[in-house]
């Protein structure tokens, strides 16, 4: 599976990448803004996406929406600070399948990524059937 990490902070992106210990994740892409994220998304069609909400150029919500609208569908996890429940609900409404609140512990992150892979796998088997 391919994972796209979208976050404007290099520290957060690297923290996520460091903690990806799932044997099924074979390729990882990083994007520090919405525009790059969408380019990478369309080019590589990752099965997994982690998305920050506050970013330059195109914000995370718009980004989610764009990805959701494309022909390829992936399991998307929002990793962001919880500024308000409205934003969180909005993210879920736009196709995210979960929300990991910043700041997070490595364990929380590992568990969340594990859940995300499971989700993508269930979705994949659904499509096959």
């Amino acid at each position, binding site marked *: 599976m391919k994972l796209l990490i979208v976050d404007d902070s290099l520290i957060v992106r690297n923290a996520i990448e460091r903690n990806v210990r799932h044997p099924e994740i074979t390729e990882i892409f990083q994007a520090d803004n919405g525009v790059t994220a969408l380019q990478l998304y369309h080019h590589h069609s990752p099965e997994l996406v982690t998305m920050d909400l506050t970013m330059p150029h195109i914000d995370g919500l718009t980004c989610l929406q764009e990805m959701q609208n494309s022909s390829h569908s992936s399991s998307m*996890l929002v990793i962001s600070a*919880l500024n308000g*429940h*409205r934003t*969180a*609900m909005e993210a*879920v*409404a736009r196709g995210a*399948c*979960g*929300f*990991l*609140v910043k700041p997070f512990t490595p364990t929380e992150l590992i*568990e*969340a990524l594990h*859940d*995300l892979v*499971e*989700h993508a796998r269930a979705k994949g088997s659904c499509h096959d059937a």
Partner: protein
Amino acid sequence: MSLYKNVKIMSTSAVIPLEVLPSAEIPIRNGTEVAIDSPRTETQAHHAILADLPGYSTIFNVDTTGEELGRLFAQYPDLPGAILFDENGFRGVISQSHFYKCISRTFGREIYYRRPASVMLNEMTVPPLILPFDCPIQTAVEQCLARPLNFIYEPFLIYEPESGEYNLCSLQILLLASSRLASLRNRQMEQILNSVTDGLLVIDRDFRIGGEYSKVVEALFERTDLRNLSLPEVLLPILDPVTHEQLHEYLRILFDPKLIDRLIKSINPAKQISVRFSSSDLGQERIKHFTLNFERIRTGKEISQVLVRIEDITQRINLARELEQQEAVAEKKLQLIMQILQVEPKVLNRFISCFNEGLSTLEHLLGAPDDSRDPRETIHALFRSAHTLKSEASFLRLTAYERALHRLEDQLEKLRVLPRLETGDLALLQPSLEALQRLGGQIHQALEQLKQFDAPAKPSAQAPSSPVTSREAGPMEMLAQVIAEISERLGKPALFHTSVRDDDLPEKYREVLHEVLIHLARNALVHGIEPADERKARGKNPTGLIQLELKMHPECHEIIFQDDGGGLNYDKIRRRAEQLGRNLSSEEELRQIIFEPGFSTSEQVTELAGRGVGLDAIHHALQMAGGRIFLHSEEGAYCAFQILLPLGLTSSAS
């Protein structure tokens, strides 16, 4: 083969109470009985299997005649049937109902009585249902009822592979057992729901509350009519609209099977909610704090229900708040200690004795009002004391004191503007005074605490003369500090320039000059020096300049304190004087009025200045020391105070 030996009840540890057994007397092999007081608990009943049911091991050879079977069934009408074996093993089952169906046909008795039972067995078109001994009761019921309609009432066999034993059980016993288990389960569920301390309820896709919920839920929501209401409906009258809407939205999300369970918990908006209940008797509102947790129940791929756990966390929240408050108080004390630690010991002692002295003056003025004295005079006197203390506190950065004294001034101000003032009105000041007394107590406590740290350099309020080892700031250094600090606080850059050293100050006027110069410095920065941009606009150096000069004359000391600020605004002073009902024309008169009690042109009263007390206090203090003060000013250019103090012995106030 004896007929009776083969009849037995299989299970000896049945948890199914006896009343579900057929009432007929059945000879029991080995004399075993079904125990009513089973050692197995009710909980184990949930996991009851077929081995727990009473079964009959009535085994016959296939050659047994129909007549022999007839005699058996006549004697034991509740026996479900007979199990037939031949030399090769198990052959089949002839139930009582099948037996009677066969023999009740025309010539049935003639056909079957004399022939072996195997003949009747051949008439069974469907083989008997054989279930393993460890099959759960509920599964057995489903399997039995799944048989063709004609055979639904046939008994079924329970097979124990280890011993190779077959036991026959009737559908009646199975259904009775199943129904008893169901009611047992219900009863237990009810007990659980009545005894758990958490509010438990289940909502469906329409957010409707299911029929079973824990008793506590009713207590939490203070209503009993919850059945079939939706959770949002119940919360609507007691929850604020914003949270309610968020929660409603979240409930929708919960039923979305695409979402990951663990990863939507973090956005639960009801982790901590405040709900309001109105008390019917008083019309008052009570606030409770709840936490709501949601567990999604999946049926296949869909989320069919959501289990809601509600907990009343009011006590926890209140406790946390109390702790927070206590922490804040402790924090304040610590701040006070830190502030005290930064203050020079000698200066602190001076402040403490001034404060205590001032406090007792205030107490005295308030406590024993002299009826012969004009209360207005008392107010002025109070003002002067409070103001002096405030400038000291401000300088020492003892902000708590500064604020409390500022509040006292506020109250005095209110009294001052009253058209008529009675001695009794002074009682209004009592709360402010009490606040100050509390502060006095606190600083005392703080010092006591400090003493325990064994800090040699820090004196206590009780021992002002304790040895001081650290370097003290002299009056000049302190003045420079005051100017730097106030200029920073006001955001008005200012430079202090002087060639005067501490030793130059005449010994006997040192105290009064210290006080006067601090007042003047505040006054210069608040009223005199303009903000930097205003100064720039006027073509002045954006940084203000404050200068101090000391001259010795044969008969007096002359001190000149000058700032290069905006100078006196005579128009403004004139207008203010007119407002106070004074009609003044000459500049000389206008310069005089600003030394009068309660005169200030500042529109804004801040903690730093603006009450018109500063100059009054200076005037008063200098008068007491036998000195005089003059004011020189040019509007837009400068303001200078000239202080003259006699060289000789201090004369009494003129």
